[in-house]
């Protein structure tokens, strides 16, 4: 995706399906103006950046808001419930950052996959744990990877974790109110975080929270219970790893939608 964009590879013109003015919502990119006129939006079809027009609109839209594209189709009923349900956690301590997650993907009452990777390395210094809808998370992780890489190529320096979180939050904002369900925790280390690292929670509702302990998902209350009791700043690396593993394990025991194995990442300076 990134290479395509840098080489200005021209994709087929999706432009004429949608009026150009529809792109006025915050696509964060500094070159918004040039993007509007080029045929491509970084390889991602433009209708992904356009929130669907829900028929259940409470307010009358004025002439300033965008008109629906001519080939708009109403939301289709899903044949099965979306994958949801997970336990992920991230915390900072004196030895760095730990990110842990279970590996079950559930679709309603079915275990769709028992060995999913919910923690994805985004960059050399950054890892993202995902929860919410599996498909949405995969897509938005990929978009984030692309954007961070583009930033690094353009500005010759790594984007900070806080910057990545804000970037992701602003990219997700147009989709607030739609069915996009993404709750990511960015964990990693950069100069700004000092020698210890940072954990930031970003979700499709628009929340963006930096904290020392973050746990997300249906199993997160159970994980918080174990973490809050045992976590302190001065834990050793082995103690922290075993605490994170135990927290996810206890959550998988109680939560039906979390289970199978525990993935664990440890970041050091």
């Amino acid at each position, binding site marked *: 995706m990134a290479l395509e964009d840098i080489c200005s590879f021209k994709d087929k013109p999706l432009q004429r399906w949608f009026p150009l003015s529809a792109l006025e919502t915050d696509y964060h990119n500094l070159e918004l103006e040039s993007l509007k006129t080029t045929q491509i939006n970084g390889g991602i079809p433009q209708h992904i950046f356009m929130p669907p027009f829900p028929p259940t609109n409470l307010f009358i839209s004025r002439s300033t808001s965008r008109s629906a594209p001519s080939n708009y189709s109403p939301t289709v009923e899903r044949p099965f419930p979306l994958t949801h349900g997970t336990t992920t956690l991230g915390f900072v301590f004196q030895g760095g950052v730990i990110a842990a997650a279970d590996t079950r993907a559930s679709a309603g009452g079915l275990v769709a996959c028992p060995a999913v990777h919910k923690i994805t390395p985004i960059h050399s210094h950054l890892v993202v744990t995902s929860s919410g809808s599996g498909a949405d998370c995969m897509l938005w992780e990929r978009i984030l990877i692309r954007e961070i890489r583009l930033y690094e190529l353009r500005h010759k320096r790594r984007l900070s974790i806080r910057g990545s979180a804000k970037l992701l939050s602003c990219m997700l904002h147009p989709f607030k109110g739609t069915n996009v369900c993404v709750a990511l925790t960015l964990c990693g280390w950069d100069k700004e975080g000092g020698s210890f690292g940072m954990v930031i929670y970003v979700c499709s509702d628009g*929340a963006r*929270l930096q904290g020392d302990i973050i746990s997300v998902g249906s199993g997160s209350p159970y994980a918080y219970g174990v973490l809050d009791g045992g976590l302190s700043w001065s834990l050793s690396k082995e103690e922290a790893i075993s605490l994170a593993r135990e927290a996810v394990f206890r959550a998988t025991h109680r939560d039906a939608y979390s289970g199978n194995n525990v993935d664990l990442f440890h970041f050091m300076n």
Partner: protein
Amino acid sequence: MEYLIGIQGPDYVLVAADNVAASSIIQMKHDYDKMFKLSEKILLLCVGEAGDTVQFAEYIQKNVQLYKMRNGYELSPSAAANFTRKNLADYLRSRTPYHVNLLLAGFDESDGPGLFYMDYLASLAKAPFAAHGYGAFLTLSILDRYYKPDLTREEAMDLLKKCIEELNRRFILNLPSFNVRLIDKDGIHDMEKIAVGTK
């Protein structure tokens, strides 16, 4: 869930906000700051729907700062409040209304202190004291009873503490600590946090 309160005195405005950032039943952060500094003497306190608060408050914050850069002088609190309200009103009947409740507190050289109450339906009212959230139901009557226009700063702090004591006694949700700030002619001052257990 969230609570904002503001009390205006003869030459200052005292504001406080709780510190909880919650996601459904979980407190994700205990030290979250809900106040946004618009300029040297204006604070915007913002609560409401998860992403809308930060997006809207930062949008207003950047625009107020842009005005200062373009024109060389800062917006007055009253102008900032009306600008904020206009933006809320413009988005209200769009496809993406902002569900935020705001208190804007500021000190103007010529008009003195001002406290402005705004809600998600884009109403605006300048008031001597105001509160947002479920906690407002419990504390507005206390403010009605004990407020005087010539409150000293210590009396205003006591009144604020009285309100928070009432919340701790009767409100079902746990709000363990509150950020407190005071705005006067010298700018914004951070006061001591009020937490459960402090006198």
